[in-house]
């Protein structure tokens, strides 16, 4: 009897133990590995004008901020017609419940004051659902002429706080402006804000210009000009509009220049005796050194952001492919292995990706791949896409898209590196060969 009782007790104890094991240990744990990808709704009511002359800027600055943020495709503006609250003072408390009701997840409030030609812009970002400020508020002082830049700076700060990466709105783009028919196209260098505003021309249209490239500090532009009848590399000081020819006209053709990250050296292609190789040149001394010496065509060089490597295109394998080599020259390793031909590689400012043009089965694509050639992803497909350039934060790519036919023209387009948000960039005329500047200080 005693044994039976013991056995029953043991059985009951074991069952209790098993029950305890099945019960939850600590808080409930779940893993979320699926979500949605959609623009984040935000609201940017008109900034509060603190002086009478500021009312015009207060509205315009809010609109430029909205155009910047919504233009990324990552954010969606809640229109003013849906706003319940009105921001009447910069330091007035925010009625978060009103912004939650219209599903605005971020809110940007600001104030503008004008004193003579001096403009002051203050702003704050708010995380509506957390009912907290997004970081600390900032104030920008400048002139009324620079109101767009100040709006871009506010948008950059908001973008950075929400996404965690730096913005790209306070930047410029140099490109080749094209006008006239295809058989008599006039080209001149132009520079504009990233969004197409404030276009200014840097050269006249007397000679053909190609492939402008910004220096790492954005103060100089390298480009190729046919002014002497032969392609030669010029460097232009954007502020002073002073030009200097870098390559000599000794029967060689020099083209496809690009700055090294230190801004003192350039790398470019030179054709001599029917062979095209890569060279580097010290801008101040003019000292040249040869980087490749193969009987094939090597061109379109681009530095890695740390300056240690160069990616370029070459047909040494029989078809046009991408290669990476040390910045001082040396053995190159091929990184592109897909179908078709690859060209115009550009290293991302972040250093993790390379953008390129790909031609395959009669169509052109802009694509990105890792620096070892892995994870190739094509972002676009059209009759003719080429010449990618990276936004300063490495998130967006701008490129040239040329339409088919005799009436076809070249235009600039931009696309997110995910392939989303493909859209044209507004320019007064046709445009090609864009090069994005670094973020302005």
């Amino acid at each position, binding site marked *: 009897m*005693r*044994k039976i009782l013991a056995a029953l007790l043991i059985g009951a104890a074991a069952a*209790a133990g098993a*029950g*305890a*094991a099945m019960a*939850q*240990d600590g*808080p*409930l744990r*779940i893993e*979320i*590995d*699926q*979500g*949605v*990808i*959609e*623009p984040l709704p935000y609201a940017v009511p008109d900034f509060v004008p603190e002086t009478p002359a500021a009312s015009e800027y207060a509205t*315009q600055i809010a609109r*430029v901020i909205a155009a910047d943020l919504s233009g990324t495709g990552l954010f969606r503006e809640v229109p003013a017609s849906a706003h*319940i609250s009105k921001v*009447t003072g910069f330091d007035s*408390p925010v*009625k978060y419940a009103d912004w939650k009701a219209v599903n605005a997840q971020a809110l940007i409030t600001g104030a503008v004051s004008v004193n003579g030609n001096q403009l002051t812009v203050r702003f704050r970002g708010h995380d509506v*659902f957390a009912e907290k*400020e997004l970081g*600390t508020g*900032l104030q920008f*002082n*400048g*002139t009324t002429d*620079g109101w*767009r*830049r100040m709006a871009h700076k506010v948008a950059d700060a908001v973008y950075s706080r929400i*996404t*965690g990466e730096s913005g790209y709105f306070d930047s410029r783009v140099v490109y080749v402006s094209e006008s006239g028919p295809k058989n008599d196209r006039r080209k001149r260098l132009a520079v504009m804000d990233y969004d197409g505003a404030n276009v*200014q021309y840097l050269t006249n*249209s007397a000679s053909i210009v190609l*492939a402008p490239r910004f220096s790492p500090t954005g103060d100089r532009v390298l480009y190729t000009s046919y002014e002497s009848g032969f392609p030669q590399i010029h460097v232009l000081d954007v502020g002073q*509009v002073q030009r200097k020819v870098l390559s000599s006209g000794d029967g060689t053709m020099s*083209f496809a220049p690009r700055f090294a990250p230190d801004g003192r050296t350039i790398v470019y292609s030179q054709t001599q005796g*029917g062979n*095209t190789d890569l060279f580097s040149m010290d801008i101040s001394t003019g000292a040249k050194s040869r980087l490749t010496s*193969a009987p094939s065509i090597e*061109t379109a060089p681009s530095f890695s952001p740390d300056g240690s490597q160069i990616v370029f295109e070459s047909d040494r394998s029989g078809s046009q492919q991408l290669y990476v080599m040390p910045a001082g020259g040396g053995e190159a390793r091929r990184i592109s292995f*897909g179908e078709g031909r690859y060209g115009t590689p550009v290293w991302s400012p972040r250093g993790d990706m390379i953008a390129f043009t790909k031609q395959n089965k009669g169509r052109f694509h802009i694509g990105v791949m890792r620096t*070892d*050639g892995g*994870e190739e992803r094509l*972002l*676009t497909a059209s009759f003719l896409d080429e010449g990618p350039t990276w936004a300063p934060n490495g*998130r967006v790519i701008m490129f040239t898209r040329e339409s088919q036919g005799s009436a076809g023209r070249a235009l600039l387009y931009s696309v997110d590196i995910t*392939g*989303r*948000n*493909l*859209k044209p960039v*507004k320019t007064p005329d046709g445009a090609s060969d864009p090069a994005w500047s670094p973020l*302005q200080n």
Partner: protein
Amino acid sequence: MQTGTKISLAGHGLLMTWVVFGAWFPSEPLPSNVQQVALISSEQFEKLSQQRQAPQVSPEPAPLNEPAAVQPAPEPAPQPDPEPEITQPEPVAPVEPDPQVTELPEQPPEPEVPVELPSAAEAPEVSSLVPQVRPETAPRPVDRVAPEPVAPPEPDTKIDDIVQPEVAPEEGAETEQDVQEATAREAASDRIVTEENEGEDVAASAAPAVSKRPKTRPARPQPDPEPQVTEAAQPAETEQTDTADAVADALAEALAGGADVEAPEPSGPPLTLGEKDALRVEVSRCWNVGSLSTDALKTTVVVGVSLSQDGKPDTGSIRMLSSTGGSSAAAKQAYEAARRAIIRCGSAGFQLPPEKYSQWRDIEMTFNPERMRIK
């Protein structure tokens, strides 16, 4: 039968047999392979070897096609430029001095008496006050990406995360009835649609997924970011000689299995897999990773939250417990996206069984964006 006939029959029989089965036994020998060998002199061999060692160097390489970019420009015709003559490049205004940036003081705390706000009807129209902003070009529609594709809803249907049918008051009803507007989830696809992969299967892309180059070294095995192991109670030992000791040991061990949990201890039956899954789906509908940086998309965060009995999250209780994979800045962005998901989708209360409140009062949610990176 005459002898001649017999001989004829036998002869024809043999002939027919040979015709039918003869081919089975080929008598001809198989043709043997013959290789012709030529002798070369040692000078010739040396010459060939030299060529193999340095095949790329030849005294006169074949002329190469010049790249299109360096084609000499057509001589510009000396006709007058129809444009206004620009002899000097237009000077560019020097970049304006950088705006001075100063940090603002903290916003004053909200006063007790709220400011009276004007009604929504007074909201000014701003669309006509945009003189210098470029007009909206027509970008490609930004597709929404969700765990499962959602068909476009009927036009005029209100977009909401919760799908509700329309409820209209009945004709002639005497009592007051609740009117409910029909809602539907926003249209979505289950992957990012680009111009390149539009209308085709992503897997059909000709591009290789990885480089064909061998990796220099195998990837270091990553430790499991959060091993969620619940310790099972040790089974009670039954092979004991002393029954009294066995009973005491078994009771002690069994009780020790559940004694690890600190108070407040969840009691009652745990959530079923289906109930857990429903909660997971509810949160994932609001977890928007579309505005996260690539670094934040590599960061897994574990967020703790306490819920009230009506299933609503206590906003003040939401906290980041741990993060793996990214920088602290990336973890902050990832946590903020997770917090928004919990608050937004929990605003109406998560659909959880009230009788099991003690089980879901405190929740740890792991937000792992790995699968969202490759959409």
